[in-house]
């Protein structure tokens, strides 16, 4: 049980670090895209690689932070029944979901993307645009990075569920436990980490 709790902690910390660092790509997208706009409209020049850059930054960002978003509970749920459920019930649902939905999905993505990514590495594939960015293989690799990070976070979710079902949730630090079921705080975007739907 202690080993399980340790794994949950390590995976949580890993995704938190990666997620927080990769979130800054959002600022990178803003700066790169704004630079392209300024160059184009004020100076009449454009560099295709810079255009590729901000597009690719988005691809890397949303795949890279997906595991972190899962850990924070940002991935939307249909929570009509989930929200009011007891912690044990939530644990059962999470355990089932990870084993039956999440892990098979990630396995399928890795299996079918592997040849696609390795082929790209084999000839150091770059942008298809003339004058574009080199290193499309790096972006493609993020499909694998995404699957691995989300699968790891899924495993952490499943282990946490097992700890709850074995009445050992106290082995986890506060921030990794299920958030308390406060009736009033049903759906407060921003406060629970859930930023809300768009």
């Amino acid at each position: 049980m202690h080993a399980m709790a340790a794994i949950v902690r390590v995976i949580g910390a890993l995704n938190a670090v990666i997620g927080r660092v990769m979130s800054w790509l959002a600022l990178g997208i803003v700066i790169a895209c704004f630079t392209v706009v300024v160059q184009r409209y004020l100076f009449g020049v454009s560099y295709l690689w810079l255009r590729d850059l901000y597009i690719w930054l988005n691809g890397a960002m949303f795949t890279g932070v997906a595991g972190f978003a899962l850990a924070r509970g940002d991935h939307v749920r249909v929570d009509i029944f989930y929200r009011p459920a007891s912690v044990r019930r939530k644990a059962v649902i999470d355990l089932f979901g990870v084993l039956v939905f999440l892990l098979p999905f990630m396995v399928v993505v890795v299996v079918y993307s592997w040849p696609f990514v390795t082929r790209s590495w084999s000839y150091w594939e770059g942008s298809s645009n003339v004058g574009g960015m080199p290193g499309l293989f790096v972006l493609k690799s993020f499909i694998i990075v995404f699957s691995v990070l989300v699968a790891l976070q899924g495993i952490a979710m499943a282990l946490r569920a097992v700890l709850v079902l074995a009445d050992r949730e106290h082995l986890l630090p506060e921030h990794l436990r299920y958030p308390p079921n406060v009736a009033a705080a049903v759906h407060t975007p921003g406060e629970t980490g859930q930023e809300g739907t768009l």
Partner: protein
Amino acid sequence: MDLVLLGELLSSLMFFGIIGFLMLGFPVAFTLAGVSLLFGLLGWGLGVFDPSNFGSLPNRYIGFMSNEVLVAVPLFIFMGVMLEKSGIAEQLLLTMSKLFGNLRGGLGLSVVLVGAMLAASTGVVGATVVTMGLISLPAMLRAGYDPKLATGVISASGTLGQIIPPSTVLIFMGDMLSGINAQVQMEKGNFAPVPVSVGDLFTGALLPGLLLVGLYASYVIFKAITDPASCPATPVPPEERSGLLREVAVALIPPLLLILAVLGSILGGIATPTEAASVGAVGAMVLAALRWRMSFSILTQTVVATATITSMVFIILFGASVFSIVFRLMGGDNLVHAVLTSLPGGAMTAMVVVMLMMFVLGFILDSFEIIFIVIPITAPVLLALDIDPIWLGVMVGVNLQTSFLTPPFGFALFYLRGVAPDSLPTSAIYRGIIPFVILQFIAIILLFVFPQIVLWLPRG
């Protein structure tokens, strides 16, 4: 059993299976993919699905990851979150309510106007409803507003972000519809089709968005005239009134100019949505900095919120891709095509059926999930029936916005319940929204009967 029939049966079972499993409450993106994989496995065993088709997954994924149009999504989210976290949205609301406070119904009107402005700067529905619920709801209740009117106007105005450009839902829809439209026109032998862009969808959504703003405002004014007790004036004390002009110049004008510049450059065809969005994001940072509200902490919160919200939406798209592959290859597309083209009444009946289906799905799913599931399987048929893609996109937008508002599962109502004081009964929120839902239906019927409201600007 006939294999074609079996495949069609499995694909429809899968659709309902997904709805059922989603009710468990496991994150939507993974449930969508997981259930589709289970049905794919079943279909494989029964000989109606070939798993090698998943080989197209990485191509689809890298397509989303290197899509220029969709970069507008994180950029607009960045802009909206920055305006919210730096307190600019809050300031806007406070100033606007002082400006209109002297009027009966003034606070309500200010909510409608600020809702429209925040919507025009991205409109994260959850955040908008919460901001207004935290600031305007207590103010209105203190002023003696009828709680039904107060909560109704906040929920409705908070969802305007779904439809008023630059709505992120419309960005995804525009990107999907432009691809589907090109393909459909090609199949019809039209090799030089008029392209549809996100910008077109934004332009088409402008008048319908303003129509809704007008309807909400008219309702508040109507209440102010016929039922003055429901929305009393809140006179601004004279010592505050002297500084009001300055406050308007500081709090109201700069964000308004930013929003107009961003939207104007898209609608005027000067810049693409992505380019304009980056200007909006930089502009929001400049506004925050000018107010000394820019700090490392605010910036960190903004990038983390932007990255995680963006990720959440795109990963649903990843999950929905698995659904699309399995559904299409098991023959679900043919089934949808057969059903939609065999309806009496032709294209318009098909449109009504699809709209009703989306509306019902809107009770449990939010807009992104619905469009990612429903648009790829129904839009090809509808567009082949000569329905205008811009009109389709905007109708879907208004429709889904409405389903955010309908009890018992409207998302906007949940968000507001979360921040409303406990003394306010939930029934007030549910009853308060009724007149606004009626206004929504009026708007939908108007857009249905007079598609020109949508098409005049982009096609004119």
